[in-house]
Each structure stands twice: as C-alpha cells, then as structure tokens.
C-alpha cells in the first residue's frame, strides 16, 4: 500500500491578548468616549479564560469598575511605558513557547480614539500620547515572536472627522483609503498578521448606550464568542467574522449607524481562526438548538450585554460564555435565565423556561440600532452570498449528520 504524504503535526496554538482601551482623547476638541473602557473590560472577560495571559491597559471609569468588580486591580494605565513593558513580557513568554514547539498567537486589541497625525500617519490615543503606525510596526509587529498576530482596532481617523463630532462623513471612502494605505505599506511584509479594523468616521457615534459598548467591538465579540461560526466547526475565520458583521449591520439605513470595516486574514494562513471554541479554555458554552431563532442576545445579571445574534431556526449555535455566573437569553418580549456553572459546561437552551420581558430604549439612533442592528439572520445563505460577492474563498460547509449505514 503506497504511503500517503506525511504532514507535520500542527503545533498547538496558545494565545495571548493585549488589550488597550482608552476613553480619553488627546485632542481637546474631541469628547472622551463613554464605553471604550467597557469594551476593554469585555474583551478581557472573553479572552482571559482562554488565553495564557491577558493584559488590559485601561483606566476603567466608575461605572465600569462597578460592573466589573475586581477587574480594576488587574489593569495598568494605557501609557507608552505600560504598553512597552507588557509587550516585552508577552514577547518573552511567546519566545519560550516557540522554543517549546508551540505556536503562540497574539491578539492586539485597541479600542478608543484614533486620529491622523500631521505626517498623515494614523495614530491611536494612549493616555500619555499618540501611538502611531510606525510604532505599531516597530514595537508590536516586528519584534513579536508570535506565529500569528491578530490586530483588532476599533478607532477612527480624525482626517475624516474634521468638521464636528458626529457629523456625516466627508471625503474619500474610509474603507478604500485604509485598504490602499495598508496595501501600500508594510503589512504585506508580515504574512503572519491579520487585521480587523473599524474604519467608520466617528467612533463615539457608534457607541450604543443599550449595549454600553461600541457597536463594532460588540459585534466582534459576539462573532468571536461563536455567533459567526457558520459551518459549526467551532472556528471563527476572518470571512465568517466579516460576513457576520455585514449581516448584523445590514438593516441600518441611518448613515451615522453604518459601520465600515476592513479585514484581512493572515496571508500565511487565510484560514487561521480568530476564535476556536474547540480549544482548551476556561469558558462555558451555551447551545442554542434548532427551533429557536430570530434576533436574540445574552446579558449577564450585572447588565453586561455579552453577545447579540440573529439566528436561523434551522441551525444550532454555540456561544462561549465566562463561567460561574448567571445570564439571561433574551429575544423580543421574552427571556430565559440560565447559570453557567463551570468551565467546560454546556447548557442546552432548548430546556430553558421562558418568561415575558420588556426592553425599552429611546432616541432616533436607539431605535435605528434597536430595530435594525442584527436585523438580518446570519447563516449559510447570507454567508455564501456575502463571500461570493467579495470573491473570497468560503469556509467548507457542514455536511450534516453522517448518514452512511
């Protein structure tokens, strides 16, 4: 019998997350953000149970500290020194992982204000000064021993924000500008780097008080938690994430609510997952089976909205949730309470007891988000159409149960 090709065993992936969340603005003309720190805290709660180390650089405001008790003690201020020190520590650990034959994966996440500097370079705001693109390459990407780096940035460029905060966008399309910008510069030299960027014009216009979070970051977290796993392989790839966000934003007609995103998977492995529910982690899992569908969201008993999704009734969905806390699974007019008892537990939502509930919101944008955000069901049909329209290679679809005898 001829021997088949021998593939080297894929090294085990271990992840690290460096989250920078900064409400403050360096520009006195720009108001501070309300929920960038909330986004940071929520990214932390999503990544901490599954990463070897998760670092949160943020100054949590009073409300956020009350929502996430104990978390403030684990944060450091989002300063250049803090970032440098954290990067050095994570890089040392990842280098050790490489020596041990592991494949470290770094998530570099920023949520806060962004600007375009005097030299035309995009920058993001740290507490004590800007952190520009050159810094990103020289301090984060180039020295990193990570096998893969996923950059997730929820910030805007002030070039497109010169009129007034919250004004309608003026100038060239942001997405096209960012695409050109990225393509023409260093990113191609780093095939292990994938990026997911919110390129909308006014970050604060995309904060939604109902979520107490930025809309883009909330969508990303919902996707990473498993809502974007269209083929049920437990992995969320870049095309799945972008299609999920496209579906979630599909119905929003108000231009202020439109999200522009740019995503590029690592060219080294375009199927590299942003999230892998199959890996060892300290998370619990909520199975929302067939028969339950429509627009739904999960909120914990602190009032932290963990994930939103619009599910097709015909397919199941699994969401990863931090364990040892209680949640509400909600849809319009009804809710079911559940407790995620421990890491690794799987809760079947099919067995939950539902009761009626009332959800209220006010304001034009509130209504636009409430009525339209996640207004379109996400599933294989939407995904296939979306990916085909982009000319991207789709993920292999699930074939259903094994019907061989």
């Amino acid at each position, binding site marked *: 019998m001829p021997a088949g090709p021998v593939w080297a065993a894929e090294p085990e992936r271990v992840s690290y997350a460096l989250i920078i969340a900064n409400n403050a603005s360096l520009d006195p003309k720009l108001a501070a953000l309300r929920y960038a720190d909330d986004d940071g805290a929520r990214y932390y709660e999503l990544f901490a149970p599954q990463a070897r180390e998760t670092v949160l650089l943020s100054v949590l405001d009073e409300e956020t500290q009350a929502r996430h008790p104990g978390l403030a003690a684990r944060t450091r201020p989002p300063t250049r020194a803090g970032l440098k020190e954290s990067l050095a520590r994570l890089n040392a650990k990842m280098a050790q992982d490489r020596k041990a034959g592991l494949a470290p994966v770094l998530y570099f996440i920023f949520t806060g204000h962004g600007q375009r500097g005097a030299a035309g370079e995009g920058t993001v705001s740290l507490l004590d000064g800007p952190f520009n693109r050159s810094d990103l390459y020289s301090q984060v990407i180039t020295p990193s021993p990570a096998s893969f780096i996923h950059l997730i940035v929820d910030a805007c460029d002030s070039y497109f924000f010169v009129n007034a905060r919250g004004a309608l966008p003026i100038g060239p399309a942001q997405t096209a500008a960012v695409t050109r910008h990225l393509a023409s510069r260093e990113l191609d030299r780093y095939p292990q780097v994938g990026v997911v960027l919110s390129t909308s014009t006014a970050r604060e216009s995309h904060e939604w008080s109902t979520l107490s979070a930025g809309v883009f970051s909330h969508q990303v977290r919902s996707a990473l938690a498993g809502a974007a796993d269209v083929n*049920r*392989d*437990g*992995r969320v790839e870049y095309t799945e994430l972008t299609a999920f966000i496209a579906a979630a934003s599909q119905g929003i007609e108000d231009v202020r609510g439109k999200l522009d995103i740019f995503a590029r998977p690592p060219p080294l492995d375009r199927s590299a997952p942003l999230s892998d*529910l*199959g*890996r*060892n*982690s*300290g*998370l*619990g*899992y909520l*199975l929302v*089976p*067939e*028969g*339950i569908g429509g627009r739904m969201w999960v909120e914990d008993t602190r009032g932290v909205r963990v994930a939103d999704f619009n599910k097709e*009734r*015909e397919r*199941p969905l*699994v969401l*990863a949730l931090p364990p040892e806390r209680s949640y509400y699974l909600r849809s319009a007019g009804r809710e079911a309470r559940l407790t995620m008892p421990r*890491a*690794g537990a*799987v*809760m*079947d939502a*099919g*067995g939950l007891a539902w009761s009626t509930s009332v959800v209220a919101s006010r304001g034009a944008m509130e209504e636009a988000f409430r009525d339209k955000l996640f207004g379109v069901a996400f599933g294989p049909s939407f995904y296939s159409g979306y990916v085909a329209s982009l000319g991207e290679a789709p993920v292999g679809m*699930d*074939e*259903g*149960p*094994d*019907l*061989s*005898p």
Partner: protein
Amino acid sequence: MLLPLALMLSLGAAPLGVDCDGERLVLLPFDTVAVTRPEGRRTEEAIRRALARTSGVCLEPRKETVERLRALSGKQGTCRDASCQAEEAKAFDAKWLVRGRVLGLGGHRTVALMLVGADGRELRSTFLVPELEAGAEEAAAKAFASLWEGRGPPSLKEGADTTLRPLPMVLLGTGAAALVVGVGFGMAARATEKRFSVGNGGCEGEGEALRRCFTDGLRRGERQSDLANGMLGLGAVLGAGGTILLVWELP
C-alpha cells in the same frame, strides 16, 4: 399525514422490532459541532450500544433509521412544539425518538441528548464524554437512564398498558347492575304503593283476612322500597369508586 403510512408500507407492513419486548426507540444519526464526522460517529455508536442494553428499550437498527431519514429527505423539520414533534415521532413509527449532538468544546467532548415522546414531550440532558470508548458508553448509559426514568410512568407510554385494568371495570359493572336492580325494585315498590293507594291492592274479604292481606302488601312494598334504596345507594357508591379508579388509571 400520509407520510408515516407510506413509510410503514415502504419498509414492510410489520412494525420493526416486533420480537423485542419493550418500547420502540429510534436513535437519529448525531449532528456535530466542532467535532469531525468520524469522531461524531464513534460517539454515536458508543451511545447506541448504551441504549441498546437499556432494559425496556427496543432500539431500531441504524441502517433502518437511515433508510427512513433518506425517505424523509428534507421533510424532517426542526420544530419545537409538541404537536410537531409528535408528528416527527410518528413519521419514524417510534414510541420514542432520541436526537443527539456531539460537541467538541473547550477541549472536551460533550453530548446533548433529547428524548422526544410520541406525544411530543421532550426531555434533555447533556453529559461529558470520557476519552475512552468504554467510558463513553458508561457515561451515555448513565445519562440516558436519567432521561428514561424521567419520562413518566410506564403505563402512560406502553401500548399494552393502555388497556383498562379489571378492578375499575368490575366496580363499574357491579355498580351498574346494582342500579338496574335498584330501579327494578323501586318500580315494583311504586306499583305496590299505587295498588294500595287507589284500590284494595287485590285484597278481598273482610275482617282479619283483609287486614292481614293489607299488612302483608304494605310490608312487601316497604321491602321493595328498602331494597331499591339499598341497591341504588350501592350502585352509586360502586359507580363512583369505579369512575375514580378509571380516571386515575387513564393515560
């Protein structure tokens, strides 16, 4: 509605598992999340073995279940309400339907099981599957046992047990007979009363003989009346008892 019948005919008129003394159960091929198909199949086979050795269960062979599924292609729904699930159970000619999903989450393998009854009722359970195959079978047996025990009293499910038990029927029959007899005596007492109240009750003669005849007639009427009341009371008590027992044992 014709689908289950067509399936029955296509798969042979005789119900499957006729030799098996237990409740007919169909285990549908498992779905998977974050698990490869072969892994999902191995787990399903372990659970199938566990179900097959559960007492009181007649498990349909996988081959036949797959044939039914293929025949149903596309018609098998994802409904959640009891009536729709009952229809699905009927479509598989099953007393019980077991759906399962193998999930490879957080580095563990978990199985979510759902037991659906012919009445559409559902019971759910999730359990961790140990690495070793034997362990998987044991874990499945344990998880399924809790579902199986929680499905309700056997008399509610088993076809043979749906026949009415003799005691309530005996009570009802006796009660009915007592009522009939009571009514009979009542009518006789009524006739006696009528005879004596409008005439001489068939007594003739004079003096002592007439008085004795009258007294005997009245006593006979009283006995008939007492018997009628007694039989009617007995019939009512037996009938009520029989009805209560009957309702108690009805599915």
